[in-house]
């Protein structure tokens, strides 16, 4: 049976176990449910958990391990000539076996019998080949007999494995049910068990989330170490030239080495983010001041969500806007006033990115300004300060640490932003101070190093991991520091 079917079966069993235990629990106290340690439902859940949980766990674990186990069994039976082949050829052979194994279950019963006989040596292998070819299973030009035998074996292993796991799951379900059913007594602490299971599930979920993150970081870290074994870290971190030289066939022969200098990319990233903040901080901050201090509740209730919608626009849309509309507009305007602005430039990407992060600045700053206690404002009014004096001299200074945190969160968004810069910043790794020229960023280069059909073992692709890790480190530090500031700020007024 498939895992899915087993799951459904177990669910049905659990439901039955729930009801049976409910009746039993009620019967043990002769209907006086207040004599039970836990509420009645917990006894049902208790039995249901015992019925389903161990069986389901085993089923999932086995389902995950099954392909590996079968594969190694099949591989072990292959002829010596195949086993001694290099890995690449061997995996090709296993691929063909797998396609046979996929084809076999589609045969009719009679046809399958023929293959079975061939496998067991009672019929010539060619019969089996013909049948398979008729069904459209690709066997290659000179199909070796072992491919069909191995494919047949694989099918049988799979069948046996399924029978086995179905049996084990059923057995565990029955045992679990029996154990829980017979342990039902009025003093049984069913609720505690059920709550522990719930707790365990929650812990497991958060562990998965954390482990995944750790796993991602480590996999990037290992690839980065791999990269640094080929390119010295100093060349990467302090190099001022970015010229990775894709090893196309011709170049490989010429033996040219790539240069992987991070500095131009980092510069481009920071330059564009700086322009973005130059746009977003004043606009976002003024919007936040207006909304928290001046706007009436009606306007605020309307304007705040609208501004936050800006944050929900997919960044590729901003990228398109920059590429198709804003970049050419800047270039043409530049022409009019005699400035040479490239359509893809620091300015284009920076301004559009700035628009994108306005809501991050404004929304968070708005919250922070609103959380400045009213008592401080009244204290200032009470001394004869006007509203604008109060905002300038009391509210904003009080909110400043929080606002700095908000700006840093926005900055880390800008630094990690990809789609806008891919479309609007350019790809040339310029180390320039001129905002009208194109530059490129870390994210753009990660994308361009990985697009295409590439092997993941040359420095040209591995560098993407080093870049990714660098980016991760920068934004992580920024985020942690920003959150630290914001939290400290919040504590100040609690």
């Amino acid at each position, binding site marked *: 049976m498939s895992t899915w079917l087993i799951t459904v079966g177990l669910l049905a069993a659990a439901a039955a176990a729930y009801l049976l235990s409910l009746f039993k629990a009620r019967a043990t106290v002769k209907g006086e449910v207040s004599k039970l340690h836990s509420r009645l439902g917990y006894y049902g859940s208790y039995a249901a958990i015992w019925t389903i949980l161990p069986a389901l766990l085993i089923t999932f674990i086995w389902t995950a391990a099954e392909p590996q186990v079968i594969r190694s069994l099949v591989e072990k039976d292959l002829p010596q000539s195949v086993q001694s082949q290099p890995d690449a050829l061997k995996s090709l052979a296993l691929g063909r076996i797998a396609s046979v194994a996929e084809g076999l279950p589609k045969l009719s019963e009679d046809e399958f019998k023929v293959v079975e006989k061939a496998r067991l040596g009672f019929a010539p292998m060619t019969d089996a080949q013909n049948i398979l070819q008729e069904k459209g299973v690709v066997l290659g030009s000179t199909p070796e007999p072992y491919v069909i035998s191995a494919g047949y074996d694989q099918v049988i292993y799979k069948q046996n494995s399924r029978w086995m796991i179905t049996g084990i799951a059923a057995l565990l379900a029955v045992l679990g049910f029996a154990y829980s059913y017979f342990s039902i007594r009025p003093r049984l602490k069913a609720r505690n068990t059920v709550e522990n299971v719930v707790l365990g599930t929650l812990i497991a979920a958060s562990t998965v989330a954390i482990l995944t993150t750790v796993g991602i970081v480590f996999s990037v870290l290992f690839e980065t170490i791999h990269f640094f074994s080929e390119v010295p870290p100093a060349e990467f971190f302090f190099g001022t030239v970015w010229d990775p030289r894709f090893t196309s066939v011709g170049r490989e022969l010429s033996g040219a080495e790539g240069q992987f200098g991070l500095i131009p990319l980092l510069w481009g990233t920071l330059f564009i983010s700086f322009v973005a903040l130059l746009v977003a901080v004043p606009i976002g901050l003024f919007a936040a001041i207006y909304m928290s201090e001046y706007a*009436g509740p009606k306007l605020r209730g309307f304007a705040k969500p609208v501004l936050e919608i800006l944050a929900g626009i997919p960044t590729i849309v901003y990228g398109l806007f920059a590429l198709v509309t804003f970049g050419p507009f800047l270039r043409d305007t530049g022409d009019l006033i005699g400035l040479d602005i490239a359509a893809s430039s620091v300015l284009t990407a920076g301004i559009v990115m700035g628009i994108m992060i306005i809501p991050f600045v404004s929304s968070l700053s708005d919250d922070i300004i609103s959380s400045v206690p009213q*008592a401080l*404002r*009244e204290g200032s009014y009470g*001394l*004869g*300060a006007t509203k604008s004096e109060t905002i300038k001299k*009391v509210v904003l200074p009080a909110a400043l640490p929080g606002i700095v945190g908000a700006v840093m969160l926005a900055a880390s968004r800008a630094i990690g932003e990809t789609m806008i810069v891919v479309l609007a910043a350019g790809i040339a790794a310029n180390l320039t101070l001129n905002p009208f020229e194109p530059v490129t960023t870390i994210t753009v280069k990660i994308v361009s190093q990985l697009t295409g059909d590439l092997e993941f073992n040359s420095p040209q692709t591995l560098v993407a991991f080093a870049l990714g890790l660098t980016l991760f480190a920068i934004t992580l530090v920024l985020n942690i520091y920003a959150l630290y500031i914001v939290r400290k700020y919040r504590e100040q007024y609690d």
Partner: protein
Amino acid sequence: MDQQVATPASSAIIRSAVDDPKVTSKDVCVFYGEKQALFDVNLDVPRNAVTALIGPSGCGKSTYLRCINRMNDTIPIARVTGEIKIDGQDIYDPDLDVVELRARVGMVFQKPNPFPKSIFDNIAYGPRIHGLVRDKTDLDELVSESLERAGLWNEVKDRLHEPGTGLSGGQQQRLCIARAIATKPDVILMDEPCSALDPIATAKVEELMLELRQNYTIMIVTHSMAQAQRVADKTAFFHIGYMVEYGDTKQIFEDPQDKRTQDYIFGRFG
């Protein structure tokens, strides 16, 4: 008792006339939106004395106090009618600058609310806004004088540039009083200034009030009847939006006339 609640304004019991009052209120009503919170309050507050406003929670003491420096202007739905004069000048006169008024009428709040700035900058805040000082020496002098008057100078003179929020609650409250004094007001409004303080800090603030009353007109809202008796020359009793009884503190506490005042003072409600 319910019939008594609807007492018309004229029946407020005024026990002793005040000649040459500092603050006079005539038929003051306050509305929050549709809801009326204060009904026809008539009250003459003597100069250079402490006047206490007492009464159960929600009876409108704060609301009345906030009329006197027009703090209710900052609440969009609040509306004030009637007439309030300070030294004979109508403070709701459209020609009057509310900023000037608030410089002349200082306010101290229930919870100490020092600005998150240095002790020095907290005091200097008002004078700087109103341009009360010409140069740094003047400012230094004004700051130290204000702190001295608030009885805080000796405790903070070595740490003027540390944040005001780092002081203890009682010190913070005296800092707020010093901050109010620095703008050279002649009326100081205090809304339950000791309710967030411990007894020792409370005693200090009370001592301070008794000292300040020589030069300032002080109005204080308090929930502590003992405090009112210790510091106040006059006491006004408020009840559900009405000023019920007003007179010398001794009279009000020893011989209240109105049934509602008696009930409150002798602890029968509130």
